[in-house]
């Protein structure tokens, strides 16, 4: 393992641009996203379906579908090393070992014709250090026990497991090699509410043990409040607001972020109606000029539609991409 450089963040994404080709049209999925993540911390990536969250995670691992998807710009630096420039062989050694991913839908994330134990053992066997005495099968059984599944179920197939147990297996696969970075793509969305908390706790415990950093993709603000250190709000492939959890929750400055909070029911208030954000996300093949949120934003003026809105940053690092930030903040605080 390379020496930890205190000044360089562990993971640093710079101006990432990803495009898909679909029916001859270019889908602008990710438009110049920059993110930073330190060892052992958690970054929440929050946004609607189709905002580009999963695409960002898959770009880090370079597992975007090879037909149609293309990373057209930017850097993904891990410990200062640009992953996008690595040869495929080296990338394969990083996948599952240094960086691993938990997928959204446990029902489809496991190979239906392979024993669950073998699926865990496979990742262990692939990343064995030369001369290591680890037995992949033993390690797989150990991982099953760690995620709360009896080791003798190694020989079962995915169809013999419930959804929650499948997600535990997916987590076991992701953590079997003690990765330094975990990409968790809505790990609880497909699960029952009662299981969600268990799975989140499990991920949290395991991360603490191994000091794993995590990029948590979600659209659930409650989950963010529970586990994240920093939060990035993404809209139509761009980060619109970025800061610590406290900054985002206590001083949301982007109209979209505030809209997200308005869509959460509050137990303490006597609200009859929730406040959904009016309108739909823009068509990613034809993004509006200027701020992509402007067509749905009640603060929008001509200025917003002129050109790319610059990011403004407060001295304590709270970033926001909005022309009317001050106005929004004042109104919010009033």
């Amino acid at each position, binding site marked *: 393992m390379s020496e930890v450089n205190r000044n360089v963040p562990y993971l640093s994404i710079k101006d990432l641009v990803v495009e898909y080709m679909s029916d001859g049209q270019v889908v602008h999925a990710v438009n110049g996203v920059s993110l930073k993540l330190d060892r052992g911390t958690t970054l929440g990536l929050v946004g609607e379906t189709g905002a580009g969250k999963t695409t960002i995670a898959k770009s880090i691992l370079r597992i975007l579908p090879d037909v149609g998807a293309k990373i057209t710009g930017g850097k993904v630096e891990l410990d200062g090393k640009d992953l996008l420039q690595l040869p495929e062989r080296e990338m394969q050694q990083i996948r599952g070992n240094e960086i691993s*991913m938990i997928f959204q839908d446990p029902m489809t994330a496991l190979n239906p014709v392979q024993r669950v134990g073998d699926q865990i053992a496979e990742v262990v066997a692939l990343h064995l250090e030369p001369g290591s005495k680890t037995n992949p099968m033993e390690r797989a059984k150990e991982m099953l026990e760690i995620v709360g599944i009896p080791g003798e179920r190694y020989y079962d*197939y995915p169809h013999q497991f419930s959804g929650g147990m499948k997600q535990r297996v997916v987590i076991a696969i992701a953590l079997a090699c003690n990765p330094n970075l975990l990409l968790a793509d809505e790990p609880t969305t497909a699960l029952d509410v009662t299981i969600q908390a268990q799975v989140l706790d499990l991920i949290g415990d395991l991360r603490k043990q191994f000091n794993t950093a995590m990029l948590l993709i979600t659209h659930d603000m409650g989950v963010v409040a529970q586990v994240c250190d920093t939060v990035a709000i993404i809209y139509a492939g761009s980060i619109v607001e970025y800061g610590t959890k406290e900054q985002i929750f206590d001083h949301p400055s982007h109209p979209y972020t505030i809209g997200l909070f308005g869509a959460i029911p509050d137990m303490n208030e006597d609200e009859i109606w929730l406040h959904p954000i009016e309108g739909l996300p823009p068509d990613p093949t034809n993004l509006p000029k200027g701020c992509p949120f402007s067509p749905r934003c009640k603060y929008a003026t001509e200025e917003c539609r002129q050109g790319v809105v610059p990011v403004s940053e407060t001295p304590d690092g709270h970033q926001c991409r909005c022309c009317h930030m001050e106005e929004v903040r004042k109104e919010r605080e009033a």
Partner: protein
Amino acid sequence: MGKYILKRLLWMIPIVLGVSILVFTMMTFCPGDPAQIILGATATEADLAAKREELGLTQPFLIRLGNYLSQVFLRGDLGQSWSSKVNIMSQIMDRLPRTLILSLVTLAISFGLGIPLGIMAATHQNRWQDSVSMVFALLGVAIPNFWLALMLILFFAVNLGWLPAMGIDNGLASYILPALSGCMGTLATCARQTRSSMLDVIRADYITTARSKGVHEKDVIWKHALKNALIPIITMLGSAFGRLLGGMIIIETIFAIPGMGNLIIGAVNNRDYPVVQGGTIFLAIAFSICMLLVDLLYAAVDPRIKAQYASSKKVRVKKEANANG
């Protein structure tokens, strides 16, 4: 699982019985007088009547059917050929292995080339490899196999002299050209089926999971994707085998291979009813066994199907337990 196999084997009895009755009835009501064909155009009416009597054709249909079924199913005797007087069972035992070998070699070539071709097309979707494979597959379906057979004979047997042009005197080498000529349709269908089935599978989430684990691309395709894509391919394998067993007549004729196709066609032309019936019964049995093997292959490939086969037993056990308790 053992119980499942036994159940399937027992099911073969009504199937074969049904096939026997069907074929017997069809042969009885098909036009043409066997006595006339056996004795030739010069036979007198008295000779013909005597021959019909000898073959038992004067008895009522149901009595003949009953006699035939009891002869076949109770005594295990297929009788003898009307035209050549040879025991039908020994004739079939002579010829069935040749047709089996020819079908198996044909299948081996079709699937041995078709699956990699389909995989190549799927993993290079919309690129030149894909187009080349699919044009090849289209040609495979379009080329008539008798024409291909003649071209292959011309090239490999006549010009190059590498392989025999006909007959079965050279062991397995005799079967290569017939199999090559007969495999094109199956190969093409197999390649297309593999392509579409692989295209479905390589977009599945678990393939992304495999990639995210750092599995090498080659293993992603051959280990993770192919096994999942195999079910429709196996289905095709079963039906292709059935088709080949009965449908190699053209190839058997061109290459002068004395197989089942030749036997049955000859018998149909001679109105040699017992041979047609015996041959068809054997093909039906071979086909049923092959379908059973396909179903077992499903279970070997997909644990979910295996669980289904086993579960019918479990349900019964549970019902019994409920009844007792």
